[in-house]
């Protein structure tokens, strides 16, 4: 890296500042970004400006946005109306203690009579399974409610890749994997286990694979197996 012309660092300092301010033409900005992708020093020059300019906002008071802003964001990102409860559609599926009571009140008022709390883990599951990726990037907890034939799934970590689906498979003994369906888009949901498969859960293995949107078109897993876990009696 010692031969070749040294880049003019003063010029680059100024250029990085102009880029941070948005003063470059689109072509100049694109060229700068391209250089920045190759040049960590240039990236550091930009970062220095970004830090300093961001400090210009230090005095700006924090102003709480209206509660509906949060609901709209969650709706835009996570909404699949046909598959989700009203509560989840409004982003209530994962509301934590930090949310202002006002937000809850507003949502309830808007949806009086429609409000429901979304899927819940069974109180007395017959089986449970933790289906986890080795590197921890996908974790699904499953609990089987024998009375309803429903497998409750909670996915605290991980999500399908854009345009892809996560499909859940049951592997019983030496038999080929049988699809239990595509995991719900929501973090939590229930999957009904077909009657003939219910006896096979005991001692089985659950696995999750990466599939085209809507699930494997062939009935066998076509993508990478991302996570596996044993079904264990409670």
């Amino acid at each position: 890296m010692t031969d070749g012309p040294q880049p003019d660092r003063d010029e680059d300092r100024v250029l990085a500042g102009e880029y941070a301010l948005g003063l470059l033409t689109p072509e100049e900005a694109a060229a700068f970004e391209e250089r920045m992708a190759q040049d960590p020093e240039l990236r550091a020059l930009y970062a220095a400006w970004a830090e300093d300019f961001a400090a210009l906002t230090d005095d700006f008071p924090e102003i709480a946005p209206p509660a509906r802003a949060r609901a709209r964001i969650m709706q835009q990102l996570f909404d699949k109306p046909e598959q989700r409860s009203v509560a989840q559609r409004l982003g209530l599926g994962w509301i934590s203690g930090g949310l202002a009571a006002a937000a809850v009140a507003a949502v309830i008022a808007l949806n009086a009579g429609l409000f429901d709390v979304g899927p819940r883990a069974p109180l007395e599951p017959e089986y449970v399974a933790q289906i986890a990726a080795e590197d921890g990037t996908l974790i699904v907890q499953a609990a089987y409610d024998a009375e309803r034939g429903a497998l409750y799934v909670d996915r605290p970590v991980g999500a399908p890749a854009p345009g892809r689906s996560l499909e859940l498979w049951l592997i019983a003994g030496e038999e080929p994997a049988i699809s239990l369906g595509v995991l719900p888009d929501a973090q939590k949901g229930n999957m009904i286990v077909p009657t003939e498969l219910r006896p096979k859960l005991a001692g089985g293995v659950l696995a999750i694979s990466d599939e085209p949107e809507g699930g494997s078109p062939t009935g066998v897993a076509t993508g990478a197996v991302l996570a596996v876990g044993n079904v264990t009696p409670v």
Partner: protein
Amino acid sequence: MSQPLIEEHIARTATGDREAFGRLYSLTSAKLFGVALRVLNDRAEAEEVLQEVFVKVWRNADRYRANGLSPMTWLITIARNAAIDRLRRRREGQAELDAAEVVPDPAPGPEAHAVAGSERERLAGCFGELERDKAEAVRRAYLGGETYAELAAAMDVPLNTMRTWLRRSLLKLRECLDR
């Protein structure tokens, strides 16, 4: 606001953790809404910008680490850029109406009188070393999204003069900030 905590929420958001994303929103939305509101001076537009910002954060959280910015700077920069984009679109619509009556506004905003915090003092000190109208031009570019052409019109100087002034000011500012 705890930077390590925000950083952790961004990292967990990058793994698709919606709860972490929700916490990140709880911790930072008021600051980012404050920034958008200050730039746009319109609550409805600031709200739309906030929505854009958090959608971007959800989709790009995995790219946060590569950019070398502190977590609040990353978020503030996304919010500022989104607000400026909108402001510029708004101005384009108005440009013809207003072209004839652009008036220079040399009065520094309240942020020029920054007080507490060593970071802010350092910044205010370095802005203070610039000539007043040059410092104001830099500030207007950042917080008002003004282009070279707009700044030149506002200060009634040729475009190239404006560019030269501002570039020199940036170099002085950088030298001072790196001192």
